[in-house]
């Protein structure tokens, strides 16, 4: 495997990891506040649809992003209504949201565009274009560092850079601000937050809303940066992988980034080396296809200890019945 291949695989890793990381951070905020969310997938999906639809209609990808985030926040609010206000089962609510998004995206897109639940292809200002970092071309020929800068770091859409900046951002918010302290506390012991005079409901809704925004960006990234339009079910299970990454990272921001990158890397490798010929026999395509999942299980079993979720996670806060 030569150097350039490695660069390309890593480049692919970054693209594949970005939507995972956004969704993972979204889940991070929600679950750290004690609201479990298996509806990441659905929120991403609806955001992908609305961002592409609005970007197409207005010709502005930024308006698309806004619309995507808004639609995702709307589903997040529904989740909040069910799990915070009405203290419902958070898992059921998440399942319902995934179904709702899978159905609604196609119904709406079909109603609007008559393209069988697709949106028309986006072009020009309706898409996020890659950003070439300064001097990328100039230094491209510098050995070793040149390609790393020009090929690997440069040339992604702005959302990629934003996403990776969100990791230290999230860390800072969670561990260095009042909001973060309260958020973590409400996921561990909401009664402590309540008796300290802070609104549990308010905090949880805030967390769920942040989750919605981040899922919205993830969906918009898929439909308007990586792709040029919405195709039904285009999230293809990424919300669930993000959830796995979150558990893998034990609900911490930096490890979340590393685990998303790991998942991205495994996928990138599997995509590049199908039918791995080992001389003696050829590894079938199916085996390469599941490599990321098998490795996840092995890593989980071998290296990661017990992951302890936020203690109040998944449990509605009831102080009197």
């Amino acid at each position, binding site marked *: 495997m030569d150097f350039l291949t490695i660069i390309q695989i890593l480049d692919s890793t970054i693209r594949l990891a970005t939507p995972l990381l956004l969704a993972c951070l979204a889940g991070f905020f929600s679950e750290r506040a004690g609201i479990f969310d298996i509806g990441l997938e659905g929120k991403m999906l609806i955001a992908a649809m609305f961002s592409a639809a609005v970007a197409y209609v207005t010709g502005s990808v930024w308006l698309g992003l806004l619309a995507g985030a808004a639609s995702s926040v709307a589903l997040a609010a529904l989740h909040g209504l069910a799990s915070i206000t009405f203290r419902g089962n958070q898992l059921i609510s998440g399942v319902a949201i995934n179904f709702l998004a899978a159905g609604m995206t196609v119904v709406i897109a079909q109603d609007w565009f008559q393209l069988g639940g697709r949106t028309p292809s986006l072009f020009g200002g309706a898409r996020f274009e890659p950003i070439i970092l300064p001097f990328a071309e100039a230094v491209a020929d510098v050995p070793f560092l040149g390609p790393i800068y020009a090929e690997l770091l440069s040339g992604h859409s702005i959302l990629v850079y934003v996403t990776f900046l969100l990791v230290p951002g999230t860390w800072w918010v969670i561990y*260095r601000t009042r909001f973060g302290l309260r958020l973590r506390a409400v996921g561990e012991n909401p009664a402590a*937050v309540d*008796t*300290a005079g802070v609104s549990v409901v308010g905090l949880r809704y805030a967390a769920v809303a942040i989750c919605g925004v981040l899922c919205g960006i993830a969906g918009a990234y898929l439909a308007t940066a990586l792709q040029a339009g919405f195709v039904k079910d285009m999230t293809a299970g990424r919300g669930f992988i993000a959830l796995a990454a979150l558990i893998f990272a034990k609900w911490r921001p930096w490890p979340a980034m590393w685990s998303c990158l790991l998942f991205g890397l495994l996928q990138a490798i599997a995509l590049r080396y199908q039918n791995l010929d080992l001389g003696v026999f050829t590894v079938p395509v199916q085996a390469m296809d599941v490599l990321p999942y098998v490795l996840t299980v092995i890593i989980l079993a071998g290296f990661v200890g017990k992951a302890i979720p936020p203690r109040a996670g998944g449990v509605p806060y009831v102080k009197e019945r």
Partner: protein
Amino acid sequence: MANEAPAIELKGISKAFGPVQANKDISIRVMPGTIHGIIGENGAGKSTLMSILYGFYKADAGEIFISGQKTTIPDSQAAIAAGIGMVFQHFKLVENFTVLENIVLGAEDGGLLRPSLAKARKTLEELEQEYDLKVDPDAIIEQIGVGAQQRVEILKALYRQANILILDEPTGVLTPAEADQLFRILGRLREEGKTIILITHKLREIMEITDTVSVMRRGEMTATVKTSETSPEELAELMVGRKVLLQVDKTPAQPGDVILDVKNLRVVDEMGVERLRSIDLQVRAGEILGIAGVAGNGQSELLEVLGGYMDATGEVRVNGTLMPLTGAGADGRSRRESGVSHVPEDRQREGLIMDFAAWENVAFGYHDDAAYNRGVLMDNSAVRADTEAKMERFDVRPPNPALAAKNFSGGNQQKIVLAREIERNPDLLLIGQPTRGVDIGAIEFIHQQIVALRDQGKAILLVSVELEEILSLSDRVAVMFDGQIMGERLPSQTDEKELGLLMAGVSGEAA
């Protein structure tokens, strides 16, 4: 002084939880600079009333006056603003946060954490100095003892500049020394003019420290008296509605064969810390061995090892048979089959399954018993019938086998566990903290049951942090400190002071 407005005045407070009327038209006045005690049976509505005052629950009816001002307290924020602080019966701390983080939570200055924490650290030092409330600000809550956790709760209130401090059963989890220290602190706070409401089941504490005392029964306030004008006996009667024996009534023990024989018992935890260091002890048939000690000195581990669910090395014999201490056979079930019953220290975490009905909890651990089974299926009606019988014998209220454990008061939960374990007719009964958080009526009953079991010739190992309880129940007392037995005494030949010293690790000879 006389015509000063009361610090707190509640008028006609009522509160229902669904069909349960927890508080019914309650009025109360507490003057500033006094300590006001509230006593009452489990489930009488004490905690509910205080939670209303603190804005945790909303009252259905009634008015609250703070320093003569009519105040509405819709949430805890408002209570804090009105200068009220509360230490709940079950602490409201974030277990994996540091002490400092718990203290600033909700009382931060500004959006950034560092300045808040720095300021809190300074204030905390001053408060520690002023009230002698020692805690390490950087310790993680779950790693410090309950006593320290309670100090954190008090510091939390003081940090919010509370003038009115409510403590709900603060001494339930404290050692005598810790309790004494708490009362010194409360005394100092009173001197400063702060108002304190103290809920407790311990009449001794009421008599010792309060100025006035109110008695609650079944959601109503039945009496408010000056402490100096009443007696423990009178209070107990007001509370329970009948005469209560405050002393355990028992005959001298008649020890028989050695039932439990422990030699060189050691436990090392996952972190490599030695929890038990070479414990040797024996319990004979027909005697109660009391283990005294500050919580966290190995008593819990001792009970868990004997109960079969903590790995250890050494020798444990029951009725002369060697018990496996690791691997197969080292579990609660096998231990029960060997004639060991165990009333665990923490009834809500271990002794009971809170979501299970009472009858399921009565079967819990004994669900293999032939009497509870018919072929491959469990005989639920047999269990229910047995539960009804047990509930009646142990006066569990309400005597409803279908009610979930979580819906019983603490005292009644404890009675369910006791009924289950005692009625098994074990050779050896391990019993931890039998009366924690239980009202005096129930304590009297539980103590009688334990003594009766001893008189049937059973061996009993009693672990309690209540020295009074240890002294009145045990036939012999062993004191544990730092995983070791510091010494053994006969209750008739020792006193709380001597035991207190042993508990603090001052060895027998020096004491």
